[in-house]
């Protein structure tokens, strides 16, 4: 092959891995420091906790990865989590419906809201920031209306079980794993997945290549909404209620995880692997700071500094 140099290919592969270098490095550093300062950190029970605790943010982050890859943004995630949680809780009273009904309803409700976002943005031409900001407030309002301002309780034990363990593994973590693999596979192996990168990388070029940019965006926002719905299901199970106030600022944590993981805010670069790493890093930091009994003021400062630091390093390294 006269035009493919072997060293070039090796450099490519290393570069791709190294893109995650900043985050992996940060993860190792943080884990080492924590293991040192807190005896309870490196235990099986604690690490299982961490994985369980990042599941909800992780699922949201995987979903919003699709949106960010198209160059868009979704601010409505937290409100969707609340709305779908309320929907789920209403359908999950003991003896009402088989488990599949509330779960499917939650995911469907999320997907519908995501589709509305997609249509507003792709066909209405409304900037994603505004469209999803609108959905953020509408969905929150809907959640309050559907719940009368109070948590919807009396959840069946089977529903609550979704947040439990199967053997040694937390189910929410399993859900996150399945979702991550499915998302990674989609982006790599589905034509639509390729189109997501094209639309984010250069919308005009994508269009000139015959891609329906609108449909691709609709796909991205619908997937994001559906996964927000799934996150709402898991959260409702974890706190055994449907809370209209749940999920406040969840979208910021989700987007932070994605950006830390290397996905560019302008679209076209990134992926699911980095997102999961980003969610993991944030979860480990939060867990560690709790274990070390650091005051919540300093927790916020630390979290923010580490996030900015990881992304700064990543951008600097990319320029090399």
């Amino acid at each position, binding site marked *: 092959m006269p035009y493919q140099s072997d060293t070039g290919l090796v450099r490519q592969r290393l570069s791709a891995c190294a893109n995650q270098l900043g985050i992996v490095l940060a993860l190792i550093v943080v884990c080492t420091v924590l293991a040192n300062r*807190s005896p*309870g*950190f490196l*235990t099986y*029970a*604690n690490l299982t*906790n961490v994985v*369980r*605790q990042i599941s909800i943010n992780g699922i949201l982050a995987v979903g919003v990865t699709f949106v960010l890859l198209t160059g868009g943004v979704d601010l409505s995630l937290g409100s969707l989590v609340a709305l779908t949680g309320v929907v789920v809780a209403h359908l999950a009273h003991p003896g009402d419906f088989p488990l599949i009904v509330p779960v499917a309803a939650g995911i469907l409700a999320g997907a519908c809201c995501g589709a509305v976002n997609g249509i507003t943005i792709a066909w209405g031409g409304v900037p994603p920031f505004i469209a999803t900001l609108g959905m953020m407030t509408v969905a929150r309002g809907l959640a*309050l209306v559907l719940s*009368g*301002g*109070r*948590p919807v*309780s009396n959840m069946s034990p089977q529903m609550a079980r979704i947040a*439990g363990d199967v053997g040694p593994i937390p189910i929410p973590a399993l859900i996150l794993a399945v979702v991550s693999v499915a998302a990674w596979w989609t982006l790599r192996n589905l034509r639509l997945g390729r189109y997501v990168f094209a639309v984010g990388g250069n919308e005009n070029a994508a269009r000139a290549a015959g891609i329906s940019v609108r449909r691709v965006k609709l796909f991205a926002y619908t997937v994001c909404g559906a996964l927000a719905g799934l996150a709402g299901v898991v*959260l409702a199970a*974890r*706190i*055994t*209620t449907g*809370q*209209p*106030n*749940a999920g406040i600022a969840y979208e910021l944590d989700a987007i932070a995880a994605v950006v830390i993981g290397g996905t560019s805010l302008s679209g076209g670069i990134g992926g699911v692997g980095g997102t999961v790493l980003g969610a993991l890093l944030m979860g480990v930091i*939060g*867990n560690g700071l*709790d*274990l070390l*009994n650091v*005051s*919540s*003021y300093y927790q916020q400062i630390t979290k923010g500094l580490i996030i900015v630091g990881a992304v700064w390093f990543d951008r600097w390294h990319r320029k090399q």
Partner: protein
Amino acid sequence: MRRAIGVMMAVLVCGCGSRKEETTGGGERQPVIGVSLLNLANEFIVTLNVEMKKQAEESGVRLIVNDAQRSAERQVQQVETFIAQKVDAIVLNPCEVEASSPAVAKAIEAGIPIVNVNSETRTAPTAFVGSRDEESARLAMEYIADRLDGKGGILMMHGYMGQAAQIKRDAGAREVLEKHPDLKLLAAQTAEWDRAKAVTLMENWLQAHGDKIDAVFAQNDEMAMGALLAIEQAGKKDRIVVVGVDAIADALKAVKDGRLDATVFQDAAGQGRGAVEVALRLIRGEAVDKETYIPFKLVTRENISEFLTDGAAE
């Protein structure tokens, strides 16, 4: 077609007519009270609102209810609007001690009686109806001290740092801790009144402090329920006493089921109805107490039946 128009006109006339009746019932103008609430996305405030409306209906008063959605700025605007509308009195459920004070000052300047309900402001209102948050924490911690025979490790979950309720409940709890030197405060952290955050915090605390934990005091029931979930999942409920504040429906049920050890009943009915009553008396020019304190009540398995009828009625 003509019939349809006739029906529509009849409906319109009835509609207008009933509104007129509201304001002229019995020949005397119906008193109007403007209410600005902290946040209708909060269960306790929802109950407060419901009780105020009931009292207003019974007393023949009209309420205009606004939701400040946790913004002190919006609250001040709402009070200004009430003043412009020339309401007869204002009931204020303050967002913040400092930032909501201008609202109170403006009402007093305009000569409109203003009653603070549930929380305080730095500027003194015409009257205050509420409860002493320190008392709720004291009741909870005394119960814990009792259960632990004055000895053991305690964790405290705070609400939003800096909110009046958080500050006072913290103060009340620490008072009791000082009286019992063998009660050790292992850690205190905020879970921001949020059940989900409380689950995560409790999971991490169980990791960090393990068997040293004998009791958890959460400054509200949402957080207590969250802590409870984590403790139950870890199978440690028989070793740890959990107490919350508010007596929301979920908590009452949990006490009845023997899951939650105790909660503290904050009398939303007492506060809400009390505030409307006081406002009405001020409108009529009658004498009122400057401060009316509605007592908290400790709720445990022993006396749960008293409260369940209230809870079930919501």
